[in-house]
């Protein structure tokens, strides 16, 4: 067994274990952390395929950003595990059916001769054919052959983002809000008033001095 094969089996074992624990872990925070482990291990698989850009992008986007926000939300929730488990066996047959159908679909697609999986060249072969880096190949494809689809996807994402912000934005009337622009522009004369007074001489110096000493 070559070194790569050993790494592949170790990564696969970790990935399957992590995926299994995502579903079975009682604590949702543990489940989310196992999902992070699953993403990280999957990026290891992509590295084995020499698709280093996709591997790094997976870590950067899913592990570094999406899962952080996900954990954020899960940690804030006060989840009652007992209540969640109530209808488990009642809903199990339906869920199992859906899972089996999805599994069958994936297997059928991958095993059908029309998928041409045997023809797909590994990235190493493509690199040997003249292209140097994975990133360059991907960039060239995205901005030449698939430009229209890529831009359309970008616009759709932008619209979704604006819509999400539009739905959640709510102005509360009673919230106290500081305008940072006003704070930055503030001058010393807006906050402090310097009063000039003529000095006056005390009338009863001796008396007040003795009073102060007593105090």
């Amino acid at each position, binding site marked *: 067994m070559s070194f790569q094969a050993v790494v592949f089996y170790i990564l696969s074992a970790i990935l399957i274990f992590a995926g299994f624990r995502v579903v079975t872990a009682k*604590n949702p*925070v*543990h489940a989310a*952390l196992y999902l*992070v482990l699953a993403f990280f291990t999957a990026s290891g698989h992509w590295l084995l395929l020499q698709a*280093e*850009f996709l591997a*790094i*992008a997976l*870590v*950067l986007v899913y*592990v*570094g*950003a999406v899962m*952080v*926000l996900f*954990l*954020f939300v899960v*940690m804030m929730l006060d989840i009652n595990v007992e209540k969640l488990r109530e209808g488990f066996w009642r809903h199990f047959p339906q869920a199992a059916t859906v899972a089996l159908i999805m599994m069958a679909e994936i297997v059928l697609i991958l095993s059908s001769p029309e998928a041409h999986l045997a023809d797909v060249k590994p990235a190493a072969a493509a690199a040997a054919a003249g292209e*140097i*880096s*994975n*990133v360059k190949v991907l960039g060239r494809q995205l901005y030449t052959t698939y430009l229209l689809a890529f831009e359309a996807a970008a616009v759709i994402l932008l619209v979704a983002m604006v819509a999400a912000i539009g739905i959640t934005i709510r102005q509360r009337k009673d919230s106290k809000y*500081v305008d*940072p622009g006003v704070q930055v522009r503030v001058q010393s004369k807006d906050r402090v008033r310097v009063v000039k007074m003529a000095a006056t001489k005390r009338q009863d110096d001796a008396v007040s001095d003795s009073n102060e000493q007593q105090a």
Partner: protein
Amino acid sequence: MELLQSLLGSEAGMAVWTLLKILAIVAPLMIGVAYLTLAERKVIGYMQIRIGPNRVGPKGLLQPLADGVKLLMKEIILPTQSSKGLFLLAPVLSIMPALAAWAVIPFNDTMVLANINASLLYIMAITSMGVYGVIVAGWAGNSKYSFLGALRSSAQIVSYELAMGFALVGVLMVSSSLNLVDIVNQQGQGMAGGSIFSWNWLPLFPLFIVYLVSGVAETNRAPFDVAEGESEIVAGFHVEYSGMAFAIFFLAEYANMILVAVLTSLLFLGGWLSPFPASWGAIGASSIVWLLVKMSAVLFCFLWFRATFPRYRYDQIMRLGWKVFIPVTLVSILVLGVWMLSPLSLWK
């Protein structure tokens, strides 16, 4: 290396050689971290007209060792009802990215552990994992203060990561490479002929400032240290940690500072290139000494900021990240793109 390969066979020799190289990077890094803590206390001390630590060893030079021994001897306390496994995993999660990122950092033209094509992307991916140490530490300790600190810190790190990433986009546009060695070598060329003015800090000045400030925010250093905020939430995400577990967080913070300093030097300050013309002999030659000098200068700025600025309020941090830095970087990238296509481009 040939000696090792002849002794152990080619594959085992290679593995041992790589381990030795890793050791040669991590050991000086750890010593650097230890003495950075001393430098911080000394620099801030003199800025506040004090002397700083001066009792242990000559001029206080053994202070970091004394601190380390003290932390090693202390008991690690596990809070009741904490999530034990995650509680112990969190310090590991926070120091791992700070060390793993050094795998692709070049020290000169040839001295680099792994000279991979996508090294800049690798660094962005690895450093984006540092936030898990903070979140997991805050959650596993089962304390309100540490949880608040973790929430603040992760929101801050995620926000500033965007600005930092956009600043890096500008650098990789002008150098048309993701490889750190190529990025430094590109700064040695151009119209200004490899002098200090052809380094990226001048043509990419807005991005340089954004990167430096985001670097301070990413490492949770003052004035962006709301995650620790001693006066508000005791000590932030690591309230519940003691002894060596706390020390690991401490090491990770300082290792991250050194990492940001070396990245700023490589990406914007010309890395190992000398600021003087090559005809000046030894000081005109590019060498690792120049990289160390630039790193020290950036690290001094980190300490200087801490001694100078009061802590930002939380909404001000968010405003700076989202409403100032991200628009600045987006406009800079656009301007840069137009500049590169125009006849005035410096990067042909």
